C-alpha cells in the first residue's frame, strides 16, 4: 500500500516528476555513453596492441624483457614448443627473432625493430598480414621484408624496392643484409607503422647469425579472461629459465590506463550524482511542503515517524528507479547501436592514431557500467531524500493540520 501511495504521488505532480526523471535519464545516458566510449577506446587501444604484435602471452629466456638483446635467446626451443602444444587454453603460437636495428634505402634510413617471424604461424597470432595495404605477405623466400606505410614514406620506398637491414649479430659484429620490400601494412597506430619491420624467421636468423635460435614465442589463447591462469600454468611448467609474460605484464601502462578509466568514471558518477542529489532534495522538499496538511492528518491518525520517513524515501526511490530504468534502456540501445555502427572520429584521426586507437571508436556496453548505474543512481536519490523525509517527520500534526 505504501508503494501504491508512492507510485500515485509520483504521478500527482506529473510535470515535476517528469522533470526529475528526465534529469535522471539524461544523467544515466550521459554516464553510460561516456563510460562506453572510454572503455571502448582503451579496450581498442589494448586490442590493437595485442592484435598487431604483443599477443596474449610471450615467452623468452629469463631476463630478456629487461635486457632485450638477442644474446638472451631461448636455449631449449623444443621444450617450449612441447609445453605449448601440451597446455590447454593455448590456441596458436608463433616464434620470433626480434632486435633493434637500422633500415636504409637509397634515400634515407630509419631505426626500429627488425622482427623475424615464422611466416606461416604469425598470421594466426597477429594481424599484420590482414593489415597489408600494398603487396603481399612474406612468402618464406629469403630477403623479403614487410614494413609499415609510415616507414615506407620515410625511406621513400615502395613494393619491389631494395632496403638494407643492419643490426648487431650474436657474436657482437654488425650483421647486415639486403632485403626487398614485398608488402606494406597500415595499422591504427602510426607509431607502430614507423617502427616495425618484418622479415622471415630464417632471414633474420641468418643476418644475426642466430643459427636457428628463437628469441620470442608469441601466444594467443582461447579465452582472454583466462590469461592469468594460462600464464601461471606455462610459468610452472617451464620453470625458472624462462620468463612467461602476459599482455598485462607487457603493457603495464595501457592496463593501468584501463583501470584508471574505471576509477575516473566513479568521479564522473559522483559529479552527476551530486547534481542529482540537489535535484531530488529540491523536488522532494516541494512535494513534502505541498502536502503538509496531508502529513499532519496521517500523523494525527497514528502514523509513526518512521513510517512517514519511509513514505517519502519510497517516493524518491520510485522516481529514481523509473528514471534509471528508462535511462538504462535508452543508454543501452544507444550504445548497442553505436557499438555496431561505430563513431567515426576521422576528423581527429591524426590525433588518435598516434594513440593507437583507430579512426572509428566502438563504444562498449559493460556490465560494470550498468551495475554502477543501477546501484549508484537510486542510492543517490535515497541520499537526496533523507533531508526532505526528516523534514516531514519533524512536522507537528497540530500545526500541520492548521497550516493553510
Amino acid at each position: 500500500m505504501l508503494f501504491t501511495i508512492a507510485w500515485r504521488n509520483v504521478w500527482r505532480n506529473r510535470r515535476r516528476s517528469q522533470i526529475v526523471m528526465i534529469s535522471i535519464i539524461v544523467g544515466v545516458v550521459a554516464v553510460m555513453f561516456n563510460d562506453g566510449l572510454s572503455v571502448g577506446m582503451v579496450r581498442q587501444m589494448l586490442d590493437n596492441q595485442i592484435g598487431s604484435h604483443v599477443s596474449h602471452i610471450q615467452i623468452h629466456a629469463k631476463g630478456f624483457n629487461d635486457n632485450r638483446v638477442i644474446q638472451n635467446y631461448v636455449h631449449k626451443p623444443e621444450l617450449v614448443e612441447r609445453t605449448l602444444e601440451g597446455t590447454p587454453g593455448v590456441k596458436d603460437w608463433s616464434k620470433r627473432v626480434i632486435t633493434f636495428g637500422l633500415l636504409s634505402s637509397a634515400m634515407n634510413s630509419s631505426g626500429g625493430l627488425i622482427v623475424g617471424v615464422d611466416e606461416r604461424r604469425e598470421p594466426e597470432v597477429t594481424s599484420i598480414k590482414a593489415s597489408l595495404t600494398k603487396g603481399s605477405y612474406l612468402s618464406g623466400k629469403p630477403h623479403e621484408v614487410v614494413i609499415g606505410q609510415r616507414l615506407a614514406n620515410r625511406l621513400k620506398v615502395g613494393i619491389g624496392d631494395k632496403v638494407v637491414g643492419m643490426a648487431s649479430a650474436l657474436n657482437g659484429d654488425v650483421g647486415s643484409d639486403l632485403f626487398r620490400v614485398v608488402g606494406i601494412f597500415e595499422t591504427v597506430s602510426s607509431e607502430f607503422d614507423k617502427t616495425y619491420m618484418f622479415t622471415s624467421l630464417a632471414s633474420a636468423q641468418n643476418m644475426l647469425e642466430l643459427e636457428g635460435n628463437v628469441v620470442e614465442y608469441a601466444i594467443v589463447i582461447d579465452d582472454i579472461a583466462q590469461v592469468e591462469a594460462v600464464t601461471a600454468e606455462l610459468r610452472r611448467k617451464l620453470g625458472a629459465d624462462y620468463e612467461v609474460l602476459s599482455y598485462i605484464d607487457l603493457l603495464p601502462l595501457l592496463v593501468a590506463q584501463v583501470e584508471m578509466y574505471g576509477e575516473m568514471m566513479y568521479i564522473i558518477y559522483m559529479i552527476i550524482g551530486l547534481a542529482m542529489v540537489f535535484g531530488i532534495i529540491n523536488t522532494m522538499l516541494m512535494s513534502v511542503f505541498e502536502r503538509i496538511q496531508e502529513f499532519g492528518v496521517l500523523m494525527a491518525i497514528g502514523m509513526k515517524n518512521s513510517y512517514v520517513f519511509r513514505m517519502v524515501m519510497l517516493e524518491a526511490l520510485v522516481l529514481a528507479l523509473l528514471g534509471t530504468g528508462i535511462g538504462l534502456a535508452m543508454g543501452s540501445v544507444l550504445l548497442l547501436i553505436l557499438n555496431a555502427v561505430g563513431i567515426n572520429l576521422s576528423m581527429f584521426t591524426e590525433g588518435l592514431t598516434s594513440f593507437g586507437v583507430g579512426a572509428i571508436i566502438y563504444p562498449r556496453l559493460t556490465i560494470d557500467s550498468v551495475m554502477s548505474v543501477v546501484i549508484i543512481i537510486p542510492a543517490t536519490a535515497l541520499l537526496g531524500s533523507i533531508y526532505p523525509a526528516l523534514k516531514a517527520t519533524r512536522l507537528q500534526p497540530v500545526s500541520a493540520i492548521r497550516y493553510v
Partner: protein
Amino acid sequence: MEVIRLERVHKTYSDNGVPVQALRGISLQIQQGEFVVIAGPSGSGKTTLLNIMGALDKPTKGAVFLEQEDVSQLSRDTISAIRLEKLGFVFQAYNLIPVLTAMENIEFTMMLLGIDEKSRRSRALEVMRELDIEELADKRPNEMSGGQQQRVAVARAIVNNPSIILADEPTANLDSETGGNLLDLMERMNRDHNLTFIFSSHDQKVIDRARRLIILRDGLIENDTVL
C-alpha cells in the same frame, strides 16, 4: 468507564512573543459512550481542547489521562499507537489521502496496524456498508462531495474500533442537510457501538443534538450540562 480525564489543563501559545492563553485551567471527565458537543465562540479554545484530548498537542500545564494513562509520560511512538488504536479523528477538511480511493483510505489505518489485506478488505466493506457508502469505494477524494468525504473520514475513524472519536467542526463545510445526515450517522454509531463522540461546533443545529454540552469561553468551561 472513564475514557478521558483532564486536570487543570492550561495551554498558552506564543503569538510572536505575545503569550495567548487558549486554555486556562480545564478539568473534565468523559465516560465511555458519551455524545459530547463542545461549543463556544470563535477563539474560545475548542480546537485546542480537542487537540489536547487527542494527544495531538501537549498542555502547557496540567495533566491528560487517556483511559487512565498519563499521556505526558508516553513516547511519541506510543502516542501514535494510542491514536491508531484508541482514537478516531475527523477534521474539518482534508481528511483523506488524495491519491487513495475511499476504500484504500479506510484500509490505510488498518494497514498501519499490520492487518493483512484480506481482513482489511472485508472490514472496510463492512464499515462502508454500515455507513451506506459502498458506492464510494473506488472514488478518490477529489471525485467526492464534501459530505461524502466526511462520511469516508468517519468510516476511517471508526474502522479500528476505537473507544473515542474526536471531530473538530465536522459539519462546518457541509450544507445543513448533509451535516444533519452526518450527525445521524454519528448518533447511530454512538447508540449501536457505544462509541464515545466528542466534537466541537458552533452550529446551533449540532448543539441541539448534544447529550452533553460543554460551553467554552475564553479558555474556561462556562457551562457543562448533561441534557
